[in-house]
């Protein structure tokens, strides 16, 4: 057991981007070098923290030295560490991509940096916090940063999309806050671990559960609460779309999962099947909508709706076998890499052609071979073909479904993969076919192509390092697999 200050690396993960946000706001001329240095430093701290927790048990970090229930604790286990790594990798990629993307719009870049570093602060703070009221503050920080970034594109679509996104986010946060208020007044603590000990099945627990779940499901865009996601994600600037789809929706999913696993273990009976049904509907509806889209970024946004569905199909599976949670986390991680790569590749094609109409993406393959490879490789992971990370995730889910003869869920998982293949090949196919109308083309900086390709490749490599990744998930036993206790 390390000393209780070992989690100082986690504290650095919060203070680094926060200080970076202030510095990039103050010193605009050097915002890009500062931002990239901060991104690198965050990655170093993340690696250090991951190494620490995978070798030794890391105790909670009491901010202010008070400790729960009076103070706020920071806490990290396999679940939160995985998501911290996800944010660090995708964050570094976006930090390298954005300066080139915004190179002709400096007034956007100078606001992109502080807003994005605030978003990163919120993500890391959210993954590390063990206090449900503090989590509310991080959720709001996350929403406001995400909305401001979504509106940065400035078009009418982006502004209305961001407005809807803001209203939905605020509604979700308020539902969550009312749930926090009820839990606090019923159990006199806002610390997750203490709540886990004290919570009993009662009307007030059910009410708080309902409110917090509703708020977080709205923010995670589970079908049919997904209506706000496609316009907001598709009309934002490419690096912002990647951030929103890869990281921001995962944050509210993480919180939902954390509360489900730790706090609401004894009141969530029967809800898992309902979540599973909505998840299955999301997989099918999102995929079909993706197939119908004529614009590339909307196709990718609907694909996010579908992929988020898988994260909820897991709930009924995990009720019979907690191993399914690993599949969900695997899918979340590989989706983050793959979806960020897809949006960045789409951003390159959009920049190159000046539009993102799928049928007019003629012979992009000749001009942007790296971007198209990135899109196709990311597609492999989204479809779930071996050896990608998406394959391992789906395999873990299918294993549980087949072992317990839950054929309905198994069929949904397989059909979702087939539909994903259909929409990915639709894009790749048009990229090879010559179109009639020619258009003006714009050069794409090499770094933008390479970043997309590296992210897409890492979503594939994730499938080849399954043993190490699964070991990381198990740190601190967040899913109660090792201790053998059923989570619900």
């Amino acid at each position, binding site marked *: 057991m390390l000393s209780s200050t070992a989690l100082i690396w986690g504290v650095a993960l919060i203070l680094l981007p926060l200080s970076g946000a202030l510095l990039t706001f103050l010193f605009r001329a050097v915002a890009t070098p500062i931002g990239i240095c901060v991104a690198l430093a965050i990655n170093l701290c993340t690696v250090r923290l991951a190494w620490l927790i995978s070798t030794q048990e890391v105790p909670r970090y009491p901010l202010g030295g008070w400790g729960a229930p009076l103070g706020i604790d920071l806490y990290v286990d396999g679940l939160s560490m995985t998501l911290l790594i996800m944010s660090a990798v995708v964050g570094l990629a976006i930090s390298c991509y954005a300066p080139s993307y915004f190179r002709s719009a400096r007034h956007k870049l100078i606001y992109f940096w502080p807003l994005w570093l605030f978003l990163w602060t919120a993500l890391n703070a959210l993954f590390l916090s063990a206090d449900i009221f503090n989590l509310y503050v991080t959720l709001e920080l996350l929403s406001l940063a995400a909305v401001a970034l979504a509106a940065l594109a400035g078009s009418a679509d982006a*502004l209305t999309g961001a407005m809807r996104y803001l209203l939905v986010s605020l*509604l979700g946060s*308020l539902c969550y806050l*009312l749930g926090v*208020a009820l839990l606090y007044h019923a159990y006199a603590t806002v610390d997750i671990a203490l709540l886990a000990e004290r919570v009993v099945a009662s009307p007030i627990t059910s009410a708080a559960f309902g409110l917090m779940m509703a708020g977080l499901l709205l923010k995670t865009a589970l079908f049919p609460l997904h209506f706000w996601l496609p316009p907001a994600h598709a009309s934002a600037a490419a690096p912002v779309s990647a951030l929103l789809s890869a990281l921001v929706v995962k944050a509210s999913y993480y919180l939902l999962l954390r509360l489900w696993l730790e706090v609401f273990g004894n009141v969530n009976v029967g809800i898992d099947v309902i979540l599973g049904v909505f998840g299955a509907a999301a997989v099918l509806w999102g995929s079909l909508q993706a197939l119908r889209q004529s*614009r590339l970024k909307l196709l990718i946004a609907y694909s996010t709706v579908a992929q988020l569905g898988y994260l909820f199909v897991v709930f009924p599976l995990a009720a019979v076998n907690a191993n399914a949670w690993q599949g969900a986390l695997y899918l979340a991680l590989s989706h983050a890499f793959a979806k960020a790569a897809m949006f960045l590749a789409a951003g390159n094609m959009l920049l190159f052609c000046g539009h993102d109409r799928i049928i007019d993406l003629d012979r992009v393959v000749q001009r942007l071979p790296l971007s198209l490879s990135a899109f196709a490789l990311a597609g492999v992971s989204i479809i779930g073909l071996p050896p990608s990370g998406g394959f391992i995730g789906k395999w873990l889910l299918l294993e549980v479904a087949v072992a317990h003869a839950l054929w309905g869920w198994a069929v949904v998982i397989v059909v979702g993969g087939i539909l994903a293949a259909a929409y990915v090949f639709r894009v790749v196919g048009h990229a090879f076919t010559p179109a009639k109308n020619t258009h003006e083309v714009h050069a794409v900086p090499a770094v933008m192509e390479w970043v997309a390709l590296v992210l897409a490749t890492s979503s594939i490599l994730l499938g080849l390092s399954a043993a190490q990744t699964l070991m990381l998930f198990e740190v601190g036993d967040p899913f109660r697999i090792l201790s053998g206790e059923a989570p619900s």
Partner: protein
Amino acid sequence: MSSTFFFALAGIGLFVLGLYGLIIYAHLLRKILAINIMGSGVFLVLAGLAHRLPDGTADPISHAMIITGIVVAVAATALALVLMLQVQHTTGQAVLPEKQKY
């Protein structure tokens, strides 16, 4: 009915009233106001329930939560209002499109 619960119940009333307004009205200013009414409802619940201590004093942690909540609400409202003006400036109206073009 004790005054403690009266405030909490009024808070719930405000919360659902705001929720109704948020869904029913199309104008963005009304939606933003509705969100603020919901927020006030939550703060009222916190303030009302804070008075359940046996010694009759208020719970300071609830009060600190309310202050934090109000500050966050102010920030969010300010951003929402500026965003609304920008939507109005760009599209000519302060309502969200019924059905997006896609």
